[in-house]
């Protein structure tokens, strides 16, 4: 008797361990959204999401470490949607409650998020560790990658190839990362607007060519004065400002003289996204389910009647 109990306990042990693991991962969810000023060059992870394909800015926000790329992207008003095929781990849509009421992009008309999106139009994931000024194409999914303190995570929408040589981000990590060495602006007034303008990039920093977007919509709410260098017709020029940082390789897919590249200054502005409440979620009504159930029952009854009549004949 006691033997069977021990056996059962042994059998249950892995299950308990798995639950414990789950609990453990739940406790690491102490990762919290922070105002942008709390991120410094050596602490916190900066998250940046480029909505410029839909006329939005590049939002950036700050989160504490340790965290995962997924957690960073699902806190402080950020919310993602996975695909029906791959689950939540594959980031198919991204939305921020402070941007167009939390509408997630790409909208369902552009991608239904049922199957894995094509390599020509998806959210690609890029990292830059502290002090680095080149983007590294993520080799791990959002749920498995753990951003290091002081690093920048960037999500851009578009196409890449497997090596990540095409469709590289147009912004540089230095344009997005936190510059302060000490946390600042911790006590934000409660009634402040959720977003605020950041300093324009320092002069001499080119925002780079636009990525291979087919439909670049200029940001409608663009107020920031374009940086002086923004009109330089040599978009492939690399950012000279950060000393002792390797220059980002110019993206080979964009010819330096193409008109699209000249139009690059319309590159989206960078806006800080303050931690916000999650967008309202409406779980809908169960009436359609009841209605569909009723329809199925009616059709089933019709089939039963047909079957009975056949048997009678």
């Amino acid at each position, binding site marked *: 008797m006691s033997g069977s109990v021990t056996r059962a306990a042994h059998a249950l042990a*892995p*299950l308990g*361990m*798995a*639950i414990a*693991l*789950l609990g453990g991962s*739940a406790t690491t*969810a102490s990762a919290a959204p922070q105002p942008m000023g709390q991120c410094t060059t050596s602490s916190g992870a900066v998250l940046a999401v480029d909505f410029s394909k839909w006329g939005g800015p590049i939002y950036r926000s700050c989160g504490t470490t340790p965290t995962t790329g*997924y957690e960073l992207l*699902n806190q402080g008003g950020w919310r993602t*949607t*996975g695909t*029906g*095929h*791959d*689950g*939540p*781990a*594959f980031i198919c849509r991204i939305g921020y409650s402070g941007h167009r009421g939390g509408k997630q992009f790409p*909208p*369902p*008309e552009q991608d*239904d*998020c*049922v199957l894995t999106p*094509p*390599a*020509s*139009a998806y959210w690609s994931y890029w990292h830059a560790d502290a002090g680095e000024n080149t983007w590294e194409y993520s080799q*791990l*999914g959002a*749920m*498995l990658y753990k951003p290091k303190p002081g690093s920048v995570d960037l999500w851009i929408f578009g*196409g890449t*190839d497997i090596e990540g040589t095409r469709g590289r981000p147009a912004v540089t990590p230095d344009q997005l990362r936190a510059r302060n060495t000490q946390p600042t602006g911790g006590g934000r007034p409660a009634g402040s607007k959720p977003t605020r303008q950041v300093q324009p990039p320092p002069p001499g920093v080119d925002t780079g060519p636009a990525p291979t977007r087919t439909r670049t919509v200029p940001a409608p709410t663009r107020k920031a004065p374009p940086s002086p260098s923004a009109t330089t017709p040599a978009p492939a020029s690399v950012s000279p400002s950060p000393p002792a940082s390797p220059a980002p390789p110019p993206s080979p897919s964009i010819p330096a003289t193409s008109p699209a590249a000249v139009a690059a200054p319309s590159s989206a502005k960078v806006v800080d996204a303050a931690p916000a409440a999650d967008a309202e*979620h*409406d*779980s*809908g*009504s*169960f009436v*359609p*389910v009841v*209605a*569909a159930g009723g*329809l*199925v029952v009616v*059709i*089933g009854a*019709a*089939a*039963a009647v*047909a*079957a009975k009549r*056949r048997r009678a*004949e």
Partner: protein
Amino acid sequence: MPSPLTRPPLSASQPDTGGRRLPRTLHPMAWWIWALALATAVSRTNNPLLLFLVIAVLGYVVTARRTEAPWARGFKYYLYLALVVVAIRVVFRAVFATGITPNDHFLFALPRVPTPDWYAGIEIGGPVSLEAVLSAATDGLRIACMLCCIGAANTLANPKRALRVLPGALYELGVAVTVSLSVAPQLVQSVQRVHRARRLRAARTKGLDALRGIVVPVLEDALERSLRLAAAMDSRGYGRAGTATRNSRRITGALMLSGMCGLCAGAYGLLDATAPRILGLPAMAAGAVLCVAGLRLGGRRVTRTTYRPDPWRFDEWAVAGCGVLSAVVLFGNAGFNAAELNPSLYPLSWPTLPPVPAAAILLAGAAGFLSPPPQAPTPPTVTPQRTEAAT
């Protein structure tokens, strides 16, 4: 009072049936077009309500319009297969964990298999959420629905008559398939006959001995039957090459081969978004044209007529049309929000029932009464001896 003789005669195609429609079998292609169109419509949606509606509609049409032929009893096996598909999808989703988020509803946890760092992309085991199970089930349900559509076509359409519609160039292929299709029922018949004969002779009908006693005569029977069939086909002129010259055969082969290559390249170009544009539709169209030309040329040497060809009348148009219409509505994106076709389960919410697609699917179900009723099975003839024995 006009005499009955002066009344206009009933038209030959519309005999007086006392208000009831004449039973006849629908053209098999009409059923296939209907079912494939419905499967196309299903491929567009992930909404479980719409999918259940499709299965209900398929069930109704199959019950109302199937015949009593052996192939017409198979729909329930397709339903079992559909269940298996859903189960496999759910199990795979649970085993190959796709991650759980703090917002998900935790169901249970499987023991996690540790994977080394360099293999961190794949997780095996781990917590399973209600959302993951439900989305795997709806995903599986969609494939299951498509399977059921094909199953309905197989149940409703006579496969032998469907093969007659093949273009002339594929005639011999069709004959071969027809012959092979009739093998299974013949074997069953043969086994039953041998079994009965053994029982009448009071031989053993069970065990290894009996197996040998049954298998050998059945094989012999099959061999004899096929030789008889070959002789009969030979005497009726099958396998005749017709008036084809060696040159025309070569041209046909070249046309078909290049056409197939074009179709393959076109399919690749259409599916891979990074492929050059020229590889998509143009290659597809060129391949299709070459194939049609090849089939035409190859069909020229087959000069055969069809015995009692299936007619294509209003009923066929109606059945095929209501299937195609449902696919057009679901792909048309008019009158409903495209997001309702693919509701997200993260976060959990009740699916909606968009009225236009639901109406389109119900319209496809109209095939159940638009098609003519199937021919009633011939009642088993009661032999006189048996009646005497019964009385």
